[in-house]
């Protein structure tokens, strides 16, 4: 089958990589470029992955879908939806994201603390390596511990370790019942309640405090969702709230100040930082709009065991939080081993990678 929706373009991608290897030409690997604002600029020749696209296989009873890197994420989500299934980690689309970019950035949506991150759903990948080979790691089975887990390593690698051409993901049935509510609680009390509820078998699958109210999504069987609703009370909330949150469409994300993402232990108290804050992931992810110094924000995050990423383009030289020297040395060793010519998205994550 070969239509616009389905094309195996891997031979061409491989040829382009081999050419780049020959001349040590840096490549800027690019799908829809929907996450251009994340990471550092890459000065390199664009390698467009969108021609290599289509669902390669999907059997709902196996709970596995395999898609080529250029497949639009919305298309993948639609195919799953038709079978009553979903990618539980809810990777954001930011418009027209591709499956390859989804994996390379490794981002997850509101369900993340309860359902796991994108990397948790990766079962296998095909990758064009820095040695000019098109290789397969992992597979389409739920459990596979043969060799090193290079597939999961690709999640969040920002293309710096190779060109991801295909990915196999574990998927799950959509919950039978889904209901969203919002409660009148200040952020501090909301965080305390969330910690308390987290120890109980409640069907919470998203929790966000927008500065005014605590928004909760309840998902599961009819019985548990209704019982939780009865117990927690609150007003009904339109479920589109979660998509708007995930896609940064809430008015909070209208940018007048640099946007920061703080990844923190979920039970961290409200941080005293200048600017507006929005709490997601039941406390484990905080969005901050602030003109404060990068080092000030990062110190605050580090002190409580977290880290901060700048989500506004070209505001700071290192949008991802600098890491300890020893750790950076091993990250560099790994990059050096897998991309010895340094052609894959050099500098996107860090100047040194």
């Amino acid at each position, binding site marked *: 089958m070969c239509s616009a929706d389905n094309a195996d373009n891997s031979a061409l991608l491989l040829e382009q990589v081999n050419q780049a290897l020959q001349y040590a030409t840096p490549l800027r690997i690019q799908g829809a470029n929907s996450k251009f604002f994340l990471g550092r600029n890459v000065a390199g020749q664009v390698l467009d992955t969108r021609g290599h696209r289509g669902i390669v296989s999907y*059997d709902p*009873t*196996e709970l596995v879908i395999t898609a080529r890197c250029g497949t639009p994420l919305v298309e993948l989500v639609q195919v799953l939806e038709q079978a*009553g299934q979903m990618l539980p980690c809810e990777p954001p689309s930011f418009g027209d994201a591709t499956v390859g970019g989804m994996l390379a950035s*490794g981002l997850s949506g509101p369900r993340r*603390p309860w359902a*796991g*991150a994108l990397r948790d759903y990766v079962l296998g990948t095909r990758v064009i390596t820095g*040695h000019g*080979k098109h*290789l397969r790691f992992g*597979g*389409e*089975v*739920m*459990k*596979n*511990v*043969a*060799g090193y*887990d*290079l597939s*999961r*390593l690709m*999640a*969040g*690698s920002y293309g710096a*370790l190779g060109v991801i051409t295909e990915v196999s993901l574990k998927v*799950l*049935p*959509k919950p*039978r019942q889904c209901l969203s509510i919002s409660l009148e609680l200040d952020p501090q009390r909301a965080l305390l309640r969330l910690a*308390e509820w*987290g*120890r*109980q*078998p*409640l069907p919470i699958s998203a929790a966000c405090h927008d500065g005014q109210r605590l928004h909760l999504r309840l998902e*599961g*069987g*009819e*019985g*548990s969702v209704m019982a939780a609703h009865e117990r927690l009370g609150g007003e009904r909330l339109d479920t589109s709230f979660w998509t708007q949150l995930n896609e940064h469409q809430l008015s909070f994300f209208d940018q007048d100040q640099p946007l920061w993402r703080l*990844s923190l*232990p*979920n039970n961290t108290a409200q941080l005293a930082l200048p600017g507006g804050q929005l709490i997601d*992931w039941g406390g*484990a992810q905080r969005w901050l709009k602030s003109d404060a110094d990068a080092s000030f924000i990062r110190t605050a995050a580090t002190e409580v*065991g977290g*880290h901060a990423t700048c989500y506004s383009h070209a505001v700071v030289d290192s949008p991802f939080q600098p890491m*300890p020297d*020893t*750790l950076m040395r*091993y*990250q560099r*060793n*790994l990059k*050096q*081993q*897998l991309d010895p010519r340094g052609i894959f998205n050099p500098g996107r994550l860090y100047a040194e990678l």
Partner: protein
Amino acid sequence: MNILYDERVDGALPDVDQGLLLRTLHTRLPDLEVLHQREELKPYECDGLSAYRTTPLLVVLPRHLDEVQGVLRICHELRVPVVARGAGTGLSGGALPLEKGVLLVMARFNKILHIDPDARTARVQPGVRNLAISQAAAPFGLYYAPDPSSQIACSIGGNVAENAGGVHCLKYGLTVHNLLKIDILSVDGEYLSLGADALDSPGFDLLALFTGSEGMLGVITEVTVKLLPKPQTAKVLLAAFDSVEKAGHAVAAIIAAGIIPAGLEMMDNLAIRAAEDFIHAGYPVEAQAILLCELDGVEADVHDDCNRVRQVLEQAGASEVRQARDEDERVRFWAGRKNAFPAVGRLAPDYYCMDGTIPRRMLPVVLQAIAGLSMHYNLRVANVFHAGDGNMHPLILFDANQPGELERAEALGGKILELCVKVGGSITGEHGVGREKINQMCAQFNSDELTLFHAVKAAFDPGGMLNPGKNIPTLHRCAEFGAMHVHMGQLPFPELERF
């Protein structure tokens, strides 16, 4: 082909002066407990894969992390290979010692450092037993989800090194899904912290890479795991089928109905009979296959799902569906399954447990092929299967005292694993490659893929001193193995010299 370290195909190891090493350890780490006499070393000759044994050069039993660091530094300076070991329950020989290497036993690091009920995390030392974490978390209504069958004895450090699974993986994931952070010591004794107390950390995901890396990249010194609230209730259904195919279809039908059971296990007739004789779980011994389906969660949901699953099972042609009436019966249903290995062990002097995974739809084909192989090698095979996630544990029965039977069992096991690869699966779902499946890695990965694995190793341990010979075979080993196993008329690794 011999499974013990063979310098000819696995790579030369440096010759070590045992006396010099002992003196150096005594001088620089006077309090470190070191075993070096033959009779002291004996108990450490093997891990859970007891058919293969090697006496280590020395065994060290540190009590403090600075001793672990000291051992690694000394071994690095003197170029001595180091094999780390937890509780020694691994089933693939991942902690099999080396004659020319030090065995670093981490079992004494058995303290639970902190349980944080609000963050729902436990920070523990690597020698803490898997079950001990859940026990310590129980007063807060929390538990640690991965439950390998050795959970009473196996240590969390080993669980991380092997990416251990269990019977609840489909719903709750493997070890990798339940970790937040690990501290490790590198081959030259440097500390690294991978992951974070937050849900993610910047840079490449080395936590994912280290999980399941079988002690090849670093030594784990501390582990922070996620804890989950204990499900309110758990119910088990037992369904009997007159054919394995029907049971296989029933599994797919449960998933298709949108239900993810906490556990979904299948046993074939030989395994059913063995378990029933041993445990008296009340299994229907005439059935060709049984399914055990556990549903957990909130009472109301579990009740509804039980009814749905019962319907699905009946429609799929189950000859009988029983729901455990009470907690006692639920535990008994599980006891049969959890004791399936020792139960089958009573049928023959020895058994060999395999660990392949397959796409679930291939189950009937694979079971039929296993039956054929069983006839061909004239050895009985019982099948126990984590049906939900496609992880099979065929148990090959043999008698090691009969000349040639161990070799036949190994050959049959190898064929089963290659069959798993052929249908799109993997040679190991949860036990790891270790030394046991080192040859079958050559069937699952080509030389370019193996070369990349070696490159990953080189990023962390360029001298190859951590657990040499495990997990990833050398290309020479594969060339030699390939020479014996020619697939479909094609020699793997045609570019390599053959010996």
